[in-house]
């Protein structure tokens, strides 16, 4: 009989044990999942639902299902002519998508480069390193609203210190209206974001750097390889996993940017991102359902970009390697 076979019995014991473990892990996870479903899942589903209705903020309970009309609707004017309405046909929405993606790509690109440089500096041995490490984190620790307001003053065209500085060293001949001019509004937002989040990148990359065993560097030194080559052939490949995770954290954050733009350059079509677009429709205008649909698309866009990025960069979130 199978039962008398010691190997089978052992296997069964092991699988019993495994089932037991799986069961208890679910029990331990249950409270967290319940909370998550309540605070994240429920609002998300509710928002998606409102996107399919004609809800108004004044009368949320009276919302009626209208299908996909918030996304795309062909309105016939009755004389054979008509027009597409809805988010997918709204140039403002696509402008917001473009702004968001542009902002994310540029800001994350520069933050990664600057973050790596800062991390390399902080990784080196020097006196007062602890102090410098703490100091570098300050921009990141300041609440965004505060730093945005602070920068808004520094960028003020009449009283701002930035213009004053540039005028004195002769970089510009007349003050720049950083946040008002349509040419510089996005640049202003990017400057502040890069200033603010580079420390966060640096911190994550520094953690990656500290994982690299020192003997590799010693070996490279003995072989007489120059430091630039060491960086590209040794350091960079080894911190790539940390870098990839840092980039995705930042990208997720950048794609839903709201507060910085809301304070610095509100209502400016050059800097209106998807989140700002959704907020406007949800609360400023009488278009709660439209704003909900925009939020749903925002969720989908972020989801798709993340999945594509994970595939392309081959980030291993399971931690198997």
């Amino acid at each position, binding site marked *: 009989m199978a039962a008398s076979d010691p190997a089978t019995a052992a296997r069964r014991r092991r699988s019993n044990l495994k089932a037991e473990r799986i069961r208890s892990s679910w029990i331990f996870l249950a409270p967290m999942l319940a909370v998550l479903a309540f605070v994240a899942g429920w609002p998300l589903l509710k928002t998606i639902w409102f996107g399919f209705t004609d809800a108004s903020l004044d009368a949320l309970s009276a919302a009626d299902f209208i299908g996909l009309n918030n996304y795309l609707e062909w309105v016939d004017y009755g004389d054979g002519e008509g027009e597409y309405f809805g988010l997918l046909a709204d140039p403002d929405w696509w402008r917001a998508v473009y702004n968001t993606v542009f902002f994310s790509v540029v800001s994350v690109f520069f933050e990664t480069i600057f973050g790596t440089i800062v991390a390399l500096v902080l990784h080196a041995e020097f006196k007062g390193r602890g102090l410098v490490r703490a100091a570098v984190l300050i921009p990141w620790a300041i609440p965004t609203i505060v730093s945005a307001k602070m920068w808004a003053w520094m960028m*003020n065209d009449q009283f701002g210190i930035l213009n004053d500085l540039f005028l004195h060293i002769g970089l510009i001949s007349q003050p720049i209206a950083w946040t008002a*001019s349509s040419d510089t509004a996005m640049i202003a937002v990017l400057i502040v974001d890069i200033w603010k989040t580079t420390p966060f990148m640096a911190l994550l990359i520094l953690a990656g750097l500290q994982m690299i065993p020192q003997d590799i560097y010693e070996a490279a030194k003995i072989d007489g390889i120059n430091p630039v080559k060491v960086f590209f052939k040794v350091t960079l490949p080894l911190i790539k996993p940390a870098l990839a995770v840092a980039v995705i954290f930042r990208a997720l954050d950048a794609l839903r940017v709201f507060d910085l733009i809301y304070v610095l*350059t509100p209502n400016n079509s050059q800097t209106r991102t998807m989140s700002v677009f959704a907020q406007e429709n949800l609360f400023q205008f009488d278009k709660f359902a439209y704003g909900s649909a925009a939020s749903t698309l925002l969720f989908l866009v972020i989801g798709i970009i993340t999945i594509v990025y994970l595939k392309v960069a081959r980030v291993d979130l399971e931690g198997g390697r």
Partner: protein
Amino acid sequence: MKLHTGLAALAAGTFLVTKAALAVELAIVSGAVGDDIKMLRSNLDRYEKESGNTVKIVEMPQSTTDQFGQYRLWLSAGNADIDVYRTDVIWAPQLANHLLDLSEAAKEVAGSHFPSIIESQTVNGKLVAIPMFTDAPALYYRKDLLEKYGAEPPKTWEDLTTTAQMVQDKEREAGNSDFHGFVFQGAAYEGLTCNALEWVKSFGGGQIVEADGEISINNPDAIKAIETAKSWIGTISPEGVLGYKEEDARGIWQTGSAAFMRNWPYAYSLSNNDDSAVKGKFGVVPLPSGGDGSAATLGGWNLAVSKYSRHPDEAIELAMFLASEESQRRRATELSRLPTIEALYDDPEVAEAQPIIPNWKEIFLNAVPRPSAPTKKDYNEVSKEFWTAVHDSMSGNGSTEANFKKLEGRLKRLKGSGWE
């Protein structure tokens, strides 16, 4: 005798206790420019002394656009933390569902206010807010500089352009390199809608959406008006003006760095403060004409009581107190805020403290309302489309013709088969 005193003391004690027990804590939310909050606090102190209730101020940023988003959210969520809201003149139809009817409480005083303002705050027969002060902008000009260079206060926008350019050139020649001809509110927000409506209307270009709901904005006069304003950017106005709100413009004006400013009457008293560089050196005139008369956008703020207030009676009492003649007189004499009570314009005390006020009665009576009545709940979006088209045109994002054509299309789309 002794017994009597004892009884009286006891009665007084009981009275104090009951009064203390009945005293409630109220909250009022208000945006502000200049010294609005200081004045509100001093009026609230008087109210607290009189009623025994305490009132907390929740302060909001100066942009009416930002305030509205927050208020709508609070009201839709049935927030009971705020009892009284300071509301813009254009909000009444959009927030009416969440506000208490004040017509019963205001029965006796409503007649003393200007009927047009009371009407603007009445939605379907319900008085949703009681007027606190009204607003109609002025053109502030530097009397000393105009005299120095032999110029008159401008009557038309064309005059303004040449005079501002002349004063700016001369001042810059004299070494005042940060001097500007004209500052106004050009940031993309409700304030730009007010400014641009004045330009358009004074050029004979209509009121964006007419009283009967017809979309009139795409016309040659309106385009000419915006083109004129566009010509100021980088010449008589700093490029940064496209990011200025009321207080930014006042900052430049009050430090003595501008020849002209378009602003609301509140800047009058502040410009006459001791710390102001232009104290006693400026005058006010109605805004210039574009060929079809001067136009001033009607502003003004009101007090509304939330339907979700836990103490509706006290909250209504507070709103009525802050809108009372005495409160308005204080606001007028100290902050040059235009009263909504007709009698105060003939008040010698007010006239002496702020000469602008009696002179401004005419202007405000002829002020142009923003199209919040015909466009109803869509007003905010109409206004955003308008200020976006104007801001884009002035910052060189597409031609004014193209932007206004697009604007017309968008408004038509928004209107659909009718405003609702």
